C-alpha cells in the first residue's frame, strides 16, 4: 500500500470514525450534522468578500507582468548566489498565489522533466510552503482583525526557510 492510496482512505475512514463514535455516544448524528451545516453556510458565505477582494488584487498585479519584469532586472544579482534560476519565480509567487505557483511548477515539469533535479526541487518547494498572504487575509478577515502586527513577516519568513531548506535537502538527497 503506497502513500497515495493511503491518503484516499483517510477521508472515508475519518468520516466513518466520527459517525460511529457519535452513535456509540448516543448522539442524534443527522440532526447535529444539519445544524452544523447551517452554521457552515453562514461561515462559507461570509468569506466570499475576502476571497473576491484578494483574487481581484492578486490577478491585477499578475496580469501587469510587473513581477516577471522585476525578475529580469534581478537576474544578474540572483545568478551570483547559488540558487537554481528556474525556481525563483515559483519561490516569489508561492506566498501570493497558489494557482500561479502550480502553473510555474507545471512549466518546470514540462521544460526540465518531472524527475530532473529542478522537477524534484519544484515539487519540494510546492509541498513545503503555503499561500501565506491568502491564508492571512482569509483567516484574519473572517474574524474582523484589522491590525495583523508581525503575522505577515513571520509567515513570509517561514516560507523563505521552506525554500532554502528545499534547496539544501534536495541537493543533499539527490
Amino acid at each position, binding site marked *: 500500500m503506497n502513500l497515495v492510496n493511503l491518503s484516499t482512505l483517510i477521508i472515508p475512514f475519518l468520516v466513518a470514525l466520527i459517525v460511529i463514535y457519535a452513535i456509540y455516544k448516543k448522539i442524534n448524528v443527522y440532526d447535529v*450534522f444539519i445544524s452544523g451545516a447551517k452554521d457552515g453556510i453562514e461561515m462559507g458565505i461570509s468569506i466570499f468578500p475576502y476571497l473576491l477582494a484578494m*483574487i481581484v488584487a492578486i490577478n*491585477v498585479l499578475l496580469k*501587469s507582468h510587473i513581477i516577471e*519584469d522585476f525578475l529580469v532586472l534581478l537576474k544578474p544579482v540572483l545568478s551570483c548566489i547559488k540558487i537554481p534560476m528556474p525556481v525563483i519565480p515559483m519561490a516569489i509567487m508561492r506566498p501570493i498565489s497558489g494557482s500561479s505557483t*502550480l502553473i510555474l511548477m507545471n512549466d518546470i515539469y514540462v521544460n526540465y522533466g518531472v524527475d530532473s533535479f529542478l*522537477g524534484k526541487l519544484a515539487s519540494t518547494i510546492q509541498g513545503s510552503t503555503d499561500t*501565506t498572504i491568502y491564508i492571512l487575509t482569509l483567516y484574519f478577515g473572517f474574524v474582523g482583525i484589522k491590525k*495583523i*502586527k508581525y503575522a505577515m513577516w513571520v509567515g513570509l519568513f517561514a516560507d523563505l526557510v521552506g525554500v532554502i531548506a528545499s534547496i539544501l535537502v534536495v541537493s543533499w538527497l539527490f
Partner: protein
Amino acid sequence: MINKIWAFFIIIGILYGFLTGNIDLINKEIINSAKTALDMFLTIFPIIVLWVGIMAIAKESGLLDKLAKMLSPLLTFLFPEIPKNHESFGFISSNIIVNIFGLGSAATPFGLKAMKSLQELNQKKDTASRSMITFLVMNTSGLSIVPTTVISLRMLHGSSNPTEVILPIILATTAATVFGLIMDRIVAKIKR
C-alpha cells in the same frame, strides 16, 4: 497592513499595466477575476458546509475534546495564553491533523472555527492576538506529511517515482514550521 497590501497590488498593477501598454489585459482581468473568485467560492463553499457539519458531530460526541487532550502537551506549550480545556484547542488540533494528512480543503473550515474561538479570547477585537499569529504561522508554513496535490501532479506528468519527494518535503516543511514558530516566539517576546 492588509489594507496597504491590497491597495498596493491594485494601484501598482493598474499603473504598471497602463505604462507598459497592457491596460487592455488589466481591464479584462478585473471583470474576469470576479468570476474566478466565484468559481473558487463554488468549489470551497460546499466543502466548508460539509466539514462544518461533520465537525459538529465530532464536537457534540466529545471526539474533538479527546483529540485536543491527546495533543494538549504540545498545544499548551505553543499557546501559553489559551486557558486549559478551552474549546479552541479542539479546533486547532483538528486543523493540524487535516493539514498533516494533506486534506487541504478540510483545513479551511477547521481553521476558521479555530480563529473564531481565538477571537472570543482576544482582548482587542481589531488586533491580532499572539495565539492567532502562532496558529497562522503553523498554517502558512504548510506542515504536511502527505502532499497529495504534488504527488498527483507528478503522477500526471509520468514521473517514474512520484512519491520520492515525500521525504524532502517532510524535512523542508518541518524546518519551515520549526523556524517559523521559533521566530514567532522571539518576535512575540520582543514586541510585548
